[in-house]
C-alpha cells in the first residue's frame, strides 16, 4: 500500500488556526480593555454597547439580514433577477416530487418523536433504581455523541445487501436469512425505506428522551410514591396513575423538541440515500434546489416554509419552558 501523508504540507492550516486564536484573544482583550477604560460613573448604556457590539453585529450580518433576503428571494426566479410572485410556493405544493418531500417530512415529524418518547420512557422506568442504571443509560445515550454522518454509515452497514445465496455482510439481512427469508435492499423500496431511515434517528435520539424523562421520574416527590405503595398500587397502576401524570411536562418537552428538530433533518438522508428513491425531506430538497440546481428561488421558498413550520413549535416550547421554570 502506498502511504503518503506530509505533515509539513498541512502547516498552513495550523497557521490559519493560530491566526484565528490570536484574533479571538485580540477581540476579547479589546472588549475588556474598553470596558475597564470606561469609568463606572458613565451611563450603563456605554458599557452595554461595548459588551453587546460583537454579538449584535454578528447576528445582524449573519442571521437577520440573510433571513430577510431569503424571504425576498423566495418571490424571485431561480437566478434571483425577476419577480415571480408566489410561483415558487405553488411549485412546492403541486409538483409530485415536492409533494413526496412534504409527505416524507411529515412521516419524520410524527414518527420519530412518538417512537423516541415511547422507548425512552419505557427504558427510563425499567432501569430506574436498578443496579446497572448509570451504565444502562450511558449505553443508550452514547449515539448522541456520534455525528449523523457516522450514524448513517453505521446503519448503512447494518442494511448492507448481498444477493440471495451469497454470505450476507449486513446484520439485518443475515437475521432475515436466518429466519428463512429473502435478503432485501432495504433503502431502495419506497415508502418503506423512509421507515428504515427513521430507525436510525430513533436510535440516535432515544438517549435524549431517556435522560430527560429519567431526571423527571427522579424528581417525583417520594411521599407521593410511598403513599401510592401503601395504598397497594401495582407496577402498572403506579406507572399510569403516578409516574405518567407527574412527568407530563417533561414528555411534552421531549415530543416538541424532537418534532421541531426533525423538520430540519438533513444529514442522515444525505449520507444514506442522498435523497434518492423518494426519501428526500425538506432541508435536503432546500439544499439541492439552492446549491446544486441553482434554483435559488425554490430553495428560498422551502427555507421560508421551514421557518413558518418551526415558529409556532418554538414559541410553544419557550412558553412551556418558562412555565416549567
Amino acid at each position, binding site marked *: 500500500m502506498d502511504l503518503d501523508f506530509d505533515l509539513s504540507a498541512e502547516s498552513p492550516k495550523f497557521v490559519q488556526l493560530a491566526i484565528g486564536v490570536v484574533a479571538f484573544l485580540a477581540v476579547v482583550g479589546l472588549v475588556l480593555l474598553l470596558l475597564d477604560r470606561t469609568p463606572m460613573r458613565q451611563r450603563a448604556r456605554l458599557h452595554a454597547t461595548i459588551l453587546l457590539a460583537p*454579538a449584535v453585529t454578528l447576528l445582524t450580518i449573519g442571521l437577520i439580514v440573510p433571513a430577510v433576503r431569503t424571504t425576498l428571494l423566495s418571490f424571485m426566479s431561480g437566478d434571483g433577477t425577476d419577480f415571480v410572485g408566489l410561483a415558487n410556493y405553488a411549485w412546492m405544493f403541486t409538483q409530485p416530487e415536492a409533494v413526496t418531500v412534504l409527505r416524507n417530512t411529515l412521516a419524520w415529524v410524527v414518527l420519530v418523536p412518538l417512537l423516541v418518547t415511547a422507548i425512552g420512557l419505557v427504558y427510563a422506568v425499567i432501569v430506574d433504581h436498578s443496579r446497572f442504571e448509570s451504565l444502562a443509560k450511558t449505553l443508550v445515550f452514547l449515539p448522541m455523541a456520534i455525528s449523523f454522518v457516522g450514524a448513517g454509515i453505521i446503519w448503512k452497514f447494518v442494511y448492507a445487501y448481498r444477493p440471495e445465496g451469497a454470505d450476507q455482510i449486513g446484520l439485518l439481512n443475515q437475521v432475515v436469512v436466518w429466519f428463512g427469508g429473502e435478503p432485501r435492499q432495504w433503502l431502495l423500496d419506497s415508502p418503506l425505506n423512509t421507515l428504515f431511515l427513521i430507525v436510525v434517528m430513533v436510535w440516535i435520539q432515544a438517549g435524549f428522551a431517556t435522560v430527560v424523562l429519567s431526571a423527571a421520574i427522579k424528581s417525583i416527590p417520594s411521599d407521593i410514591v410511598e403513599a401510592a405503595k401503601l395504598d397497594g398500587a401495582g407496577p402498572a397502576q403506579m406507572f399510569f396513575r403516578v409516574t405518567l401524570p407527574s412527568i407530563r411536562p417533561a414528555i411534552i418537552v421531549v415530543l416538541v423538541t424532537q418534532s421541531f428538530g426533525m423538520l430540519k433533518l438533513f444529514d442522515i438522508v444525505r449520507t444514506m440515500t442522498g435523497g434518492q428513491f423518494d426519501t428526500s425531506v425538506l432541508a435536503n430538497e432546500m439544499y439541492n434546489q439552492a446549491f446544486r440546481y441553482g434554483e435559488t428561488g425554490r430553495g428560498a421558498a422551502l427555507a421560508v416554509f421551514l421557518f413558518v413550520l418551526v415558529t409556532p413549535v418554538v414559541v410553544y416550547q419557550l412558553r412551556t419552558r418558562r412555565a416549567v421554570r
Partner: protein
Amino acid sequence: MTSVRASLSSRTASLVALLIAVLWTTPTFGLLLSSFRQEDQIKSTGWWTFFSAPELTLENYQEVLFGASSSSGQLASFLINSIVITVPSVLFPLAFGSFAAYALAWLPFRGRDWIYIGIFALQVVPLQMALVPLLSFFSQGVEVFGLHLLPAWNLEGTGRFVQVWFAHTCFGLPLSIFLLHNFMSELPGELMEAARSDGATHGMIFRRIVLPLVAPALASLAIFQFLWVWNDLLVGLIFAGGTAESAPMTVRLAQMAGTRGNEWQRLTAGAFVSVIIPLVVFLSMQRYFVRGLLAGSVKG
C-alpha cells in the same frame, strides 16, 4: 401470588432493558470490529463470523488516514481541518455570548428587554434561512439598494476556514446568549452591589465574579457547541468547500458513503475515526452535558 407476579414482571422488564441495550450497542460494535478486519473479509463475510476465525489488522486505518490515492480517503487532512474549524467555532460564540449575556442580565439600560427578546426570537430562525445570502455575502459583499455596505471577502484555500468560523459563530450565538443569560441572571444581586461599592469596574466583576460562577454552564455550552460543530455536515458542505484543503471530516465521509458506498474497509475505519474524538469528550464530560441538556438547551 403478588410476589410471584412482581418478580415475573420485573424479570420481563429486565429482559426488555437488556434487549434495548443490546440493540443500541450492536450496530456500533459491528462497525468497530469490521474496521479491524481485512478488506476481502469485510466484503465477503459478516462481522459476526469473526469469532470463529479471529484475525485483526490496522491496514484499513492506515489506508483511510494516510493513503496516497485520491480514492483512499486521506482522512488525516480532513481530521486536521475538523480541528482547525472546531476550536475557534467554539471559542467565539462562548466569549461573545457571555459578554452579551452579562450586559443583558446586569446592566440597566433602555431597550434592554427589546434586545433580549429579539435575540431570543432568533432561536426560531432555521439556519437554512441564512445559507444562500450568507454565501453570496462572502463572495460578493453586502449591497443594499446599490449601496456597498461590506466588501467581498474572496477567501480561497485555508482562508475558507474564516467563513466557516463566521457561520458557526453566528448560528451558535442565540442559544449561547440565551443559556448564559439564564444562568447569569440567577446570580445574587448583592454580590454585584458589594463589588461595585468596593470600586470594581464591570470588567472586574465580569472576570472575577461572574465567569467563575457560571463556569459549569460554560462547560456544558462548550460541549454542545463542540459536538454541534464537529458533527455538522450542512455548514461545512456549503462554506468549507469539498476538498482536503478546508472541508471537515463529515463532508469527506458523506462523499465516500455516496461514491464509494461499498468500500466498507474505508467507510468503517473512517466512520470510527470521526466518532472517537466526540465519544471521548462526551464520556469524560457527560455530567456537564446532561446538566446542560436538562437546562433546556437544545440546539434550534
